């Protein structure tokens, strides 16, 4: 699980000195420890654009500890930022449009594009961001905010809104080399208050390996005020496949936010699963999720021992790779059942019996190769792409209960599985992402944990790729 270009200083130096045509990836800044009150402490964030979100952004950024740099010609541009700036002692700074001042650098750029309506308006993206993009610090962040194209009244508006996503995806590929990421956020009218938690996540190091992604903030699920720290205090979380890899990392991160984590894995994995549970003060549940009585057992156990569950992470998965022509039927059945069938059966049971409590969070694991297609994985991709459809449809049904349903699609993650790949293929796969490296199980765990928080109530029905902006997939 070692990327020599990241971990071996000599290799990094050698490649740089010799000027080899290999891009040396930037070490990504990553979060340590649980959620903080001020995830953006002392960061400089350029706020620009044309839109209605200035005061939402002002509140959110200053509270999170950031200093806003506001582009404008007159002091009046600072107006929405003055009050929140005084409240948190983060005075905004006015910068003139056009060339950035000498030596000025920023840690993040937030573009408010909610006011853009015509293709000509898209020029604002260029006008505001072009002078600053090369002033973005390492592990920097770009967030482009707009209104959802689907809600547009006129096709022109829809086109403009959709344009923001393409811009952001391309920009992400350009800034990945210095460890920076870019994502777009489309916020429904009336859901502006739900931006806060999304921004705190996307601008923080917790989103290190998420790039090129669109996020849709909606009012689909009901929800109230959410805590900024100890975000899962008092919650019970179920993680399937918790014995190792992404499941293990996720269980640890959920526990660090205060959740009691029920670590589920196959009876054969008793030892590693129990070890994880013990380390994080959680519980162990040994069930083969493909057993016909698995939904019953899981539901009964959660109800009896914990009175229900708040967070369900369907992480358990399996590959049985063969080209379709060579594939045996049981390989097909197994991959589709574990990756999709069992997920649906268990979820249905938890919902039917009200084991999942109001305000619950369901997070399913999809996969970038599932979305993009991969030779030898017809079975796996059928299952993982099925997840995308499942979360979208279910999200619409359960929003009234305050439940959100989302999927995470990991790209190239440094795990036992990928470490077993042939060296050449592994090297290529790693460098295919915008940030030129693989992610870690913690990167995926951070995304899952974020979707599990009460603050992520604005996101439901989404499939979020944690892929560092991989070339493949959509």
């Amino acid at each position, binding site marked *: 699980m070692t990327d020599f270009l990241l971990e071996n200083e000599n290799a990094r130096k050698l490649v740089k000195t010799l000027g080899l045509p290999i891009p040396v990836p930037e070490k990504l800044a990553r979060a340590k420890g649980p959620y903080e*009150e001020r995830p953006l402490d002392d960061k400089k964030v350029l706020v620009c654009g044309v839109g209605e979100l200035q005061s939402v952004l002002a509140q959110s950024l200053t509270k999170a500890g950031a200093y806003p740099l506001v582009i404008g010609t007159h002091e009046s541009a600072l107006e929405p930022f003055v*009050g929140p700036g*005084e*409240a948190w*002692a983060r*005075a905004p700074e006015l910068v003139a449009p056009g060339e950035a001042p000498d030596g000025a650098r920023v840690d993040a750029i937030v573009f408010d594009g909610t006011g853009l309506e015509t293709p000509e308006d898209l020029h604002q993206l260029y006008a505001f961001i072009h002078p600053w993009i090369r002033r973005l610090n390492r592990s920097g962040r770009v967030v482009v905010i707009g209104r959802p194209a689907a809600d547009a009244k006129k096709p022109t508006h829809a086109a403009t809104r959709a344009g923001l996503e393409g811009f952001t995806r391309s920009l992400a590929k350009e800034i990945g080399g210095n460890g920076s990421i870019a994502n777009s956020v489309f916020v429904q009218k009336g859901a502006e208050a739900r931006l806060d938690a999304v921004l705190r996540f996307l601008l923080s190091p917790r989103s290190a390996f998420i790039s090129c992604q669109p996020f849709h903030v909606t009012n689909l699920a009901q929800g109230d005020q959410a805590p900024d720290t100890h975000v899962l205090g008092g919650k019970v979380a179920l993680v399937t496949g918790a014995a190792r890899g992404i499941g293990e990392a996720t269980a640890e991160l959920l526990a660090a936010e205060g959740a009691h984590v029920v670590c589920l894995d196959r009876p054969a994995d008793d030892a590693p699963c129990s070890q994880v549970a013990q380390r994080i003060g959680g519980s162990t549940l040994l069930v083969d999720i493909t057993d016909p009585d698995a939904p019953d057992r899981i539901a009964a156990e959660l109800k009896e021992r914990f009175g229900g569950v708040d967070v369900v992470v369907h992480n358990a998965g399996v590959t049985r790779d063969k080209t379709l022509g060579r594939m045996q039927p049981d390989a097909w059945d197994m991959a589709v059942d574990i990756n999709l069938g069992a997920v649906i059966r268990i979820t249905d049971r938890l919902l039917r019996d009200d084991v999942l409590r109001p305000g619950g969070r369901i997070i399913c694991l999809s996969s970038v190769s599932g979305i993009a297609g991969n030779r030898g994985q017809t079975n796996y991709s059928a299952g993982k792409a099925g997840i995308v459809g499942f979360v979208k449809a279910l999200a619409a049904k359960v929003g009234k209960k305050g439940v959100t349903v989302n999927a995470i699609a990991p790209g190239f993650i440094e795990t036992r599985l990928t470490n077993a790949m042939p060296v050449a293929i592994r090297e290529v796969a790693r460098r295919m992402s915008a940030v030129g490296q693989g992610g870690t199980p913690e990167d995926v765990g951070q995304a899952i944990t974020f979707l599990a928080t009460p603050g992520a109530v604005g996101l439901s029905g989404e499939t979020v790729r944690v892929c560092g902006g991989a070339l493949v997939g959509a």
Partner: protein
Amino acid sequence: MAKKKNGWGKKQRAVIVGGVRTPFVKAFGKYLKLDSIDLGDIAVRSLLERTDISHQEIDSIVWGGVILPSHAPNIAREIALDLRLPASVEGMTCTRACASGLQAVTLAAAAIERGEADVVIAGGSDSTSNAPLNLPQKAVHALAPLAFGKAATPGDYLGVLAQMMPITDILPKMPKIAERTTGEVMGESAESMAQRNEISREAQDQFAARSHHRAAEAIASGRFDSEVTAVETPEGWVHADNIVRGDTSVEKLAKLRPVFAKDGTVTAGNASPLTDGAAAVLLMSEEKARALGYKPLAAFRSWSYVAVDPADQLLIGPAIAMPKALDGAKMALKDIDLVDMHEAFAAQVLSVTKALASKGFAEVRLGKNKAVGEVDEDNFNIYGGSLSIGHPFGATGARMVTTVANELANSGRETALLGICAAGGLGAAAVLEAVR
């Protein structure tokens, strides 16, 4: 002698009857030989003499301190024993960083209001000069098994020596006022608050100069005479505060170099100095005070203690505590005749007053739709404050209560608001009213 009828559940008003303090002097100076118990003894003895209270009437002593003597941390009880008060005078010592003195006084008021007690002495003292220099834990852990454990072989001694390298790791460290969680020295926090709240060097120096001028005037006019008692030390008598510089000026202060950052604004001139001293206040139930023939000076209408994240703005707490105390008293800042704020740093005081005047701060941090208000210079720290008078951590709250209570009793002002910032991101505040 235990003499108390059981007063539990009796609702009574607590009033301040009097207060006395020692002169406040620079640490490692004239009080070098007096520890915080000695200083407490002196303040309380003087309070007993000046108020002429019968020792039999006293129920308890509540004391505040920050650097507590490790051999006898319950200073309150030591004072009672040193002064040979009746054995029944119980004592407790509280610590809430720089708000410890106010904490002691409000604990006493609460005990009286609950009917737990009728007559309580409250106050605080600190002697930075006598802060124990602790051996680093590393040295203790290495040496303790040899000193207190089983018999050791020569090899064990060598092992211990090896553990104690490098030698700088085991030398006693000077005490410093650093946050345990952030490691930040308080001056650094003040420096960052000055930057973040855009408090200029000039504004800080102006505030500091004013503090000195006002304190010097108060001393010259005899305003503190009834509140300050002379102290006898082995080297002679100390009659007056020795930190106040009546002859300082903004120009002089401007010459000082910043201490905590190269291009910083916080200097020795606009920060409160390490100080030794003690202050004590006598509180009673109003009924008791009248029965014993005392004229009550003032009473508490409310108080409040709050906390903010120490890693953010360490000393902004009063900007939240003061409005909360006002709410508790069902009053607004405009109803207040006198504001007295602990001056840890000029930058901190000005950050707090700026926040109080900010609508944005009120909306976001206090959930109010308008600013708490501008603090009127003419009614604010009218006799100076910790910058000029000094700041023995545990004593400051009781000093402020004494000065403000006397002011309310004698000036025709009716109401006062106190504010104190403290390490750990704590904020304290209280509203006092005159008792006529």
